[in-house]
């Protein structure tokens, strides 16, 4: 649906985006993560056809995005810009009506009404944009982005400034759009949001540092530690665990949890569980210790500053 191939964008001597390649498939949400100035907005603007890449190419729905095709392809793209960009002296409905005209929507009134309903804005349709709160403005901007039912959604910091309830509704809405077949690329600083929302996470820092499912990214940082939670006092089972992993290995105890570093977690974990059950332990949970996405992100950012490039799998399923 969205194909970015070796995208590079320079502004004078400064390289904002460097050789970025990735795809976003139909019914997929990809979160674009990166620090300020990482090139997220530039990437989105290139994908929206607002600025041209210095080199590389973009295809939307199989059609090359060029200066000549930009006008037509923008009909298939919904781009939520960083600022809501509403005309303050126009009402919510009037703002949407202008965009309905710009997209040439024949059944403008019906679509506007339906979109207003979707965002629970029916009662505010006659409110001037200038009178709206920041969250409401963002909501209207999102409604505007979805008005023409685009196949591709590009969202720049969509939940910035939104309260938790509106954020949750927004996530539900994106889930619906994904189910309807949309390809969605969302730039965000919010790692929690990225994890909840996205099928894959792309970490951008001028170049594409990593792109994969959140769980796979976290697994990259997995330390090989396994956590076992038992009912009752876990200290009594420390010798049992050491009988499997060796007496030199430290078994940490934290509340009802035993935590142990394993050389070969896949082979050793079942043996530990068997030994614990034989020793009378009532096991509540066994899981590998997984880093938070934040740890992965920080690790990737740290590595991205080093000269060598990380290996990146840009297409879904290729990771």
């Amino acid at each position, binding site marked *: 649906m969205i194909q970015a191939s070796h995208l590079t964008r320079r502004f004078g001597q400064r390289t904002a985006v460097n050789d970025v390649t990735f795809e976003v498939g139909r019914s997929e949400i990809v979160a674009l993560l990166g620090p300020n100035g990482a090139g997220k907005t530039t990437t989105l603007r290139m994908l929206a056809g607002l600025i041209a890449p210095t080199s590389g190419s973009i295809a939307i729905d199989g059609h090359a995005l060029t200066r000549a095709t930009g006008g037509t392809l923008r009909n298939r793209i919904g*781009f939520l810009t960083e600022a809501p960009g509403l005309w303050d002296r126009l009402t919510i409905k009037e703002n949407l*009506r202008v965009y309905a005209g*710009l997209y040439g929507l024949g059944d403008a009134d019906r679509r506007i009404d339906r979109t207003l309903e979707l965002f629970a804005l029916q009662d505010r349709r006659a409110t001037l944009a200038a009178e709206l709160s920041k969250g409401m403005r963002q909501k209207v901007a999102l409604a505007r982005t979805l008005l023409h039912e685009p196949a591709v959604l590009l969202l720049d910091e969509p939940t910035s400034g939104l309260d938790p309830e509106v954020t949750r509704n927004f996530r539900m809405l994106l889930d619906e759009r994904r189910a309807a077949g949309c390809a969605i690329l969302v730039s965000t600083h919010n790692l929690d949001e990225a994890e909840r929302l996205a099928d894959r996470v792309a970490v951008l820092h001028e170049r594409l540092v990593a792109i994969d499912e959140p769980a796979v990214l976290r697994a990259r940082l997995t330390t090989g530690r396994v956590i076992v939670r038992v009912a009752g006092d876990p200290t009594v089972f420390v010798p049992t665990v050491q009988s499997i992993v060796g007496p030199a290995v430290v078994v940490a105890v934290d509340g009802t949890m035993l935590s142990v570093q394993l050389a070969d977690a896949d082979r050793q974990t079942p043996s530990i569980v068997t030994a614990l059950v034989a020793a009378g332990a009532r096991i509540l949970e066994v899981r590998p210790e997984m880093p938070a996405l934040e740890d992965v992100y920080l690790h990737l950012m740290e590595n991205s500053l080093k000269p060598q490039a990380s290996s990146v799998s840009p297409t879904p399923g290729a990771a």
Partner: protein
Amino acid sequence: MEITRVRALLAKEFLDLARNRSALVPVAIVTVMSLVLPFGIAIAVPAFSGHPLGEDADLVRVSQVAGAAENLSNDARIQLFLFQQFLMMFLITPVTGAMALASHAVVGEKQARTLEPLLATPVSTFELLTAKVLGALLPTLAISAIGLGLYLGGIAAFAAPGVAAAMASLRTLLLTILVAPAAALVSLQAAILISSRVNDPRTAQQFGVLIIIPLAALMVAEFSGSVWLSTAALAMIGASLVALWCLLSLCSVALFDRETILTRWR
């Protein structure tokens, strides 16, 4: 060009203007001045002072430059001359309005951060600029036309006999339906061109207002009797302004650099 897109943007411009009528105050003031000054000078002052215009030898001499109708009295001929000169003020009226509205056209959208979502739609640069030009031109011309109607109506009602009939000439027609709108178009297009190249509406206004200078010079030259714009001269000026507008339109589209506007403006 998609008319529906231009219409949608034009509707936005009119709604915006309808809720921000103060933007039309400058053009309204110039229109009122264009009405008060000529009637004050040509009719009210002589009536109150008791000194008819025809008593002033200089005015009699200058009025003959205009080639005014020979069958008119000295008073009527001078009135005709003055009313013809003040008609030039209606060139400045739409230009003033154009400046007030058009200088905000692009840079205003950028400052309000409404330009990026707008450019993310299928709207072309030509469609966007057409809507911006018409959005500023039509209200300005409407106000100017009302002023002109009052002006001509006032002449018919208050001027000396024969003046109104003498005003109804091809020259007046050319000035009002060709030269004035064309001058407004040129100033508008120039303001929009500048508006899409600068970061600040005030800069656009300052550049755009430069077009007033040749118009004012023309007025002064006519008043002094050193220049008289004949019908043919006005037709040529009108045609030149239209040609200049076409050129500026092409330049506006060519120089409207979406990337620069989005990425370098702060």
